């Protein structure tokens, strides 16, 4: 096994190990009732945000394109999940919540994926700043559209109306009610399903980036023209990353949406996309483990530290600026490297011991 391969294997083992160990500890805490109510309420959202961060990292960190509309895919998933779950319950009297949840998550992922393809076709022809701003535009358009979307169910059928609620037949049970959002959701999301979804996300993303397609994705990031000259179809692989991320975000959205009784369009604004961007940037572009840690940490922090909640966005803004300057300015980068080199040496020395265990931080 080559050095690079071994390094990658250890990284993947640590990533999976950390998630599994954290899950086992939390499950034990839950059964021992040693967990605060507020933290318990945060478990499913944390799972959703981890999936959001890891999937956005696939687009930003590996394919090198800034997508500012990731929350849009999440909202598609959340709405689809709510509608599918409500519809299954009313039309087929499907009482099993787990089955409903799984079907809702699948539907959320598929619909978000379809939108990912539709949006990706025009967007991925663009580059750099233009691509970023167009993804932002699409995120806002999606939010605008769901704001005037009305979906009701009656006699096992779904009824859709757009702009005008009156067009729905009388006597329908509303599932999506315009600006009021998806209403009367029966919360069915569980931490266990969230955990499984994280594992699926990790398998998809980590296996993808270490495969032929994943290397092609990274090649288009590092040098577009050179990648094309090597016969790598840039659009195809950017699309692959973009759509995979959209599917995962849609599944995360369904999980998130089915965790509460309502989902409103204002939950998925541009600000939410920026939140996820902060997770990705702070965790490190292309660093999946970093995304997991920062998404967890930054979701819990405002809950436990009220003072932080007030200054959250301010701190996020400063984090974005400082991380970017420190990792991209030649002078500061050299400085950081010098600071980090003793630590790196230490890690290298200890690698022999750490390689064995999966649960090392």
């Amino acid at each position, binding site marked *: 096994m*080559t050095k690079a391969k071994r390094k990658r294997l250890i990284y993947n083992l640590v990533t999976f190990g950390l998630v599994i160990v954290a899950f086992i500890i939390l499950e034990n805490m839950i059964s021992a009732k040693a967990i605060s109510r507020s933290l318990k309420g945060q478990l499913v959202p944390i799972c959703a945000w981890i999936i959001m961060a890891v999937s956005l990292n696939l687009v930003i960190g590996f394919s090198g394109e800034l997508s500012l509309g990731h929350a849009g895919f999440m909202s598609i998933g959340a709405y689809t999940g709510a509608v599918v779950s409500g519809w299954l319950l009313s039309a087929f009297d499907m009482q099993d919540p787990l089955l409903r949840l799984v079907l809702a998550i699948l539907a959320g992922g598929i619909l978000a994926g379809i939108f990912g393809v539709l949006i990706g076709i025009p967007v991925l022809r663009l580059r750099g700043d233009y691509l970023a701003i167009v993804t932002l535009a699409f995120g806002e358009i999606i939010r605008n559209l769901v704001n005037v979307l009305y979906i009701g169910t009656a006699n096992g059928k779904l009824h859709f109306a757009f702009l005008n609620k009156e067009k729905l037949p009388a006597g329908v049970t509303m599932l999506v009610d315009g600006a009021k959002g998806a209403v009367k959701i029966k919360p069915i999301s569980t931490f266990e399903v969230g955990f499984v979804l994280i594992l699926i996300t990790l398998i998809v993303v980590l*296996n993808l980036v270490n495969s032929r397609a994943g290397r092609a994705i990274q*090649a288009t990031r590092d040098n577009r023209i050179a990648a094309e000259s*090597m016969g790598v179809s840039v659009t195809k692989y950017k699309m692959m990353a973009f759509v995979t991320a959209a599917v995962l975000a849609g599944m995360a959205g369904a999980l998130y949406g089915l965790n509460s009784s309502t989902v409103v369009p204002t939950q998925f604004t541009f600000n939410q996309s920026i939140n996820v961007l902060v997770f990705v940037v702070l965790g490190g572009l292309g660093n999946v483990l970093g995304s997991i840690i920062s998404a967890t940490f930054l979701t819990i922090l405002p809950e436990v530290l009220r003072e932080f909640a007030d200054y959250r966005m301010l701190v996020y803004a400063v984090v974005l600026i400082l991380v970017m300057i420190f990792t991209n300015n030649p002078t500061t980068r050299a400085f950081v490297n010098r600071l980090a080199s003793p630590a790196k040496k230490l890690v290298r020395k200890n690698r022999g011991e750490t390689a064995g265990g999966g649960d090392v931080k």
Partner: protein
Amino acid sequence: MTQKPKKHRSDTKMVPVPSHSIIPERDVDEIPVMETRHLGIEFGGLKAVDDFNLTIGKTEIAGLIGPNGAGKTTVFNLLTKVYEPTTGAVLINGQDLHGMSIVQASRLGIARTFQNIRLFDKMTVEENVRIGLHNQIRYDMFTGILRLPRYWKQEKRQHERAMELLDIFGMQDLADETAGSLPYGAQRRLEIVRALATDPKLLLLDEPAAGMNPHETEELMENIAKIRDQFQIAILLIEHDMSLVMGVCEGICVLNFGKVIAKGTADEIQANPAVIEAYLGKKKEG
């Protein structure tokens, strides 16, 4: 829009090639690996390349020289479809590249290196070569995600082939280094290896010796000949180092202000008054 290529064969040929040719199959009756007919491109009214006609035989090493700004790299960009020509046509193995993308041109068997190195900086040396093998050793996305048996088999093949190719320049030891951290000369060599990985029929080298010392240049010269013999491909190179061009190229084409001013063997080019003037004129300016 692009003018339709004319039916007749281009009258300006570099083949038949000089007498010191050692490869018997290179011969006028064969379809040349590459042929351009009245190739030209304009940028905002300026003819960067004009009426460029060149034919390269199956295993020929040819040189494209000329003063700075003569349009040499533009020719490469036309051949690889980075630019769509405004006039004329490029034929690879008799197939017109009209309307093709960079990727399609690459699949027809053109590979190149870049004047200002374009490696995949954040990836390892081995991974860079694997990108070159992208269309040679394949498996789809789901095979990769699900780690099906084919994944392991093809990954192994890719790795072995990459190491074989790196061996050309003795770069196996560097396989796990990050490409961006390599010294300059090694980066240039890696670009050649990566291009070779695409299994090209025609290899375009844009100033392969730039920034190399005389010793490295000499080594490179031997390697270029070795690559041609081993892979049985044609090579077209842009180079300012005249010792390399004159030493390795069997045919040379001189470009000035976007126009071909001379074609022939090294000896013919060195004696050509138009070439001498182009280069001396440049000296006066500098």
